[in-house]
């Protein structure tokens, strides 16, 4: 009785009209018939896709700055923040003449996200002081090979010609407003 949801069982016998079953069967048939013409709820997936929420947390992107240089400085804060320990990286020092490639003196020579470990919580994005990593409303493509889910820097990084729009994620007031 704690939840107040218990019900008293009533074993009442059926009346004669109920025991004929036919009115109940007829009502049931009408219900199923009405469903026959209802709009179907199925999303025909490969042809149709559902509209994602603007702040959907899917596949990550590594951003470049306005000049096309990589923003990431391999500080490792994202890897530390990651609760699933999905991010690993190797830092390297920028050589003279690489200024157009990397924004600051240190950069990530290797950067890898294990998409099978990642829980898409977005903590890496919040931890990043350089606005280098964002989650995007894209899905990690499926594959039969485990190796295909270890996304290296080359796959994560956006190209200069093909920028990934993350303005929707930036609109969240709590994150960037406080920072």
């Amino acid at each position: 009785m704690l939840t107040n949801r218990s019900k008293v069982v009533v074993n009442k016998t059926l009346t004669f009209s109920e025991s004929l079953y036919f009115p109940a069967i007829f009502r049931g048939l009408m219900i199923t018939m009405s469903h026959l013409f209802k709009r179907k709820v199925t999303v025909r997936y490969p042809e149709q896709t559902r509209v994602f929420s603007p702040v959907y947390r899917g596949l990550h992107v590594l951003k470049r700055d306005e000049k096309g240089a990589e923003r990431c400085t391999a500080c490792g804060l994202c890897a530390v923040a990651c609760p699933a320990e999905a991010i690993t990286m190797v830092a390297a020092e920028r050589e003279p003449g690489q200024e157009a490639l990397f924004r600051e003196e240190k950069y990530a020579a290797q950067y890898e996200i294990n998409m099978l470990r990642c829980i898409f919580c977005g903590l890496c994005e919040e931890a990043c002081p350089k606005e280098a990593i964002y989650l995007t409303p894209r899905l990690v493509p499926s594959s039969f090979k485990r190796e295909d889910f270890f996304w290296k820097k080359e796959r994560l990084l956006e190209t200069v010609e093909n920028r990934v729009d993350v303005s929707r994620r930036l609109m969240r007031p709590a994150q960037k407003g406080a920072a």
Partner: protein
Amino acid sequence: MLDLFFIIQKLILVSAVLAITLVIAMYTTYAERKLAAFFQDRVGPNRAGPFGILQPLADGLKFMFKEAFIPANANKFLFVLGPSISMIAACMACGVIPWGSSLMIMGHEVPLQIADLNVGVLYLFGVVSLGVYGIMIGGWASNNKYALLSTIRASSQMISYEIAMGIALIALTLSTGTLSLKEIVSLQHGGHWNVWVQPLGFIIFIICAFAETNRMPFDLPECETELVGGYHTEYSGMQLGFYLFAEYINMFVSSTVMAALYFGGFNFPFLNSLGLSHNLVTLLGVGVFFAKIFALMFFFIWIRWTIPRFRYDQLMRLGWKVLMPLAIFNMLVTAVLILL
């Protein structure tokens, strides 16, 4: 006189009827899945071909290429015999159905019926009852407790419902005065359908037909929640396919029988006032007959996705304490009305 024309005509008719039966049974599986989906606000199979129209072929191929495994402790001969009997018994019933009146081909009158038995109704009833042997033998030969339990259920259910069905048929033959299916159909000419004469008999018959074909409110032999897979727990590959397929053939045959016995078969109103040629009227009649069959099959599927399964004691109670007395009452009333 068995002339060549007669033999060829019957051979063509037999192959045509068999082919049509199998194709319709095949596409009933598709219709069932599609309608089930629609009743549940889904879209159903839609990947194999346009609208999933090739789905039954894909299912059949899958059954073909799967291993037909025979368990170590099963009786191997009976294990294979079970699904074969189910399939053969299901197909045999089509032999006496009058699909249409007759076609005039090269000066010969070709009746669209394989065999016009004067005891057609009895033949039909006997062949339909054979179907239970397929389930019994298969379930027993599996050497599996679930299969055996399901077999016991199936046989007792079929025996119980056959009685009511038989008595309903007696009332029908009382009012028509013949056991030949062709005559029963032609007596219903011009909208004098037997369902108006025998409404109670028809209701009893259709309920029993659901039970005989092991369809939804009475599908206790294969109720997966209690009996794993029922009598086909141990079956795989095309043998399982035969069992599942036989159910759909049975459904088609029951709908055909009901359309012929109670809904006028190939007769339709204003049949002769259209002023068409004999062959055209016959073909139209065949079309009308199939329309009636498909309507009844839709009803089978519709019921399946509406009504939950009976409890076993309720099933037996309905069979023995409700349907059988009702059928006897119906028979007596019919007999008295004919006497008066």
